[in-house]
């Protein structure tokens, strides 16, 4: 039996974690959620791994760009997808530059998830 794709939802908003988590579960993924980038980095440092990371841009403690840079510096090759509620292009470009595979506007929809899974399958 093929193992399920594992995803980590990194967002300080509990509502977004719930919605994005459910969206991923509906597409057959297993999901976990954390509140900020520091918790995400700590999970990877503890030995856990995920196929997909949904990374919010703005979070307290450690934001998305910083967490993404740290994960890439650690050698994490998971697909990291940025998610942002703010449409400022310069900020999105900087976020991409931190090491994202792609960046989407919040809230995600089923089309976005299918696109991510297609990208993941090609990796």
């Amino acid at each position, binding site marked *: 039996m093929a193992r399920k794709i594992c995803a980590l939802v990194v967002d300080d*908003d*509990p*509502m*977004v974690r*719930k*919605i994005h988590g*459910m*969206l991923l579960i*509906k597409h057959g993924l297993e999901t976990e959620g954390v509140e900020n980038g520091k918790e995400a980095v700590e999970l990877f440092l503890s030995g856990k791994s995920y196929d997909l990371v949904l990374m919010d841009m703005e979070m307290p403690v450690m934001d998305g760009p910083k967490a993404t840079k740290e994960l890439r510096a650690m050698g994490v090759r998971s697909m990291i997808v940025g998610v942002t*509620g*703010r449409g400022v292009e310069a900020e999105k470009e900087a976020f991409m530059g931190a090491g994202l595979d792609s960046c989407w506007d*919040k*809230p995600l*929809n*089923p089309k976005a998830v299918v696109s991510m899974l297609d990208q993941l399958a090609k990796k």
Partner: protein
Amino acid sequence: MLGFRVERLWADMTGLLALLFHQGVLDEQFLELQQLQDESSPNFVLEVFNIYFHEAEKLLRSLRSLLVDGEFSDYKKMRIHLNLLIGSSSTIGAKRIRNVCIVFRTASDQNNKIGCLRALELLEYEYCYLKNKLHELFQIEQQRILAAAIRE
């Protein structure tokens, strides 16, 4: 008789939803949320909205405090709160609330206290309206589910 009641409740639910869409209170993002609900997560939409209401009320209290308490208003902090409220309102499809927040944010960018106070009052009104209507919707839905279960 029970069958009639279930149909009636279904009509009440769809009628209320249609009204909220027609008034621009909700947009299609609400429907996206509904589509995530199923038998394995029958209270998903209610749970999402409970989180929204809890967080929104904290933000609204904070916005009022920032505007009314003290001589000077912290417009930067207001902007942060409004961005959060715009984001969460967009996520659940609360279109009118989102639009009022955008107007409020413009007023705060201009350090326009009177504009902000007016926007805050409107925002509090819209929030209460949405909360009351959604509670009504969720109650009708619960009654419908109960009536359908009894009928079976």
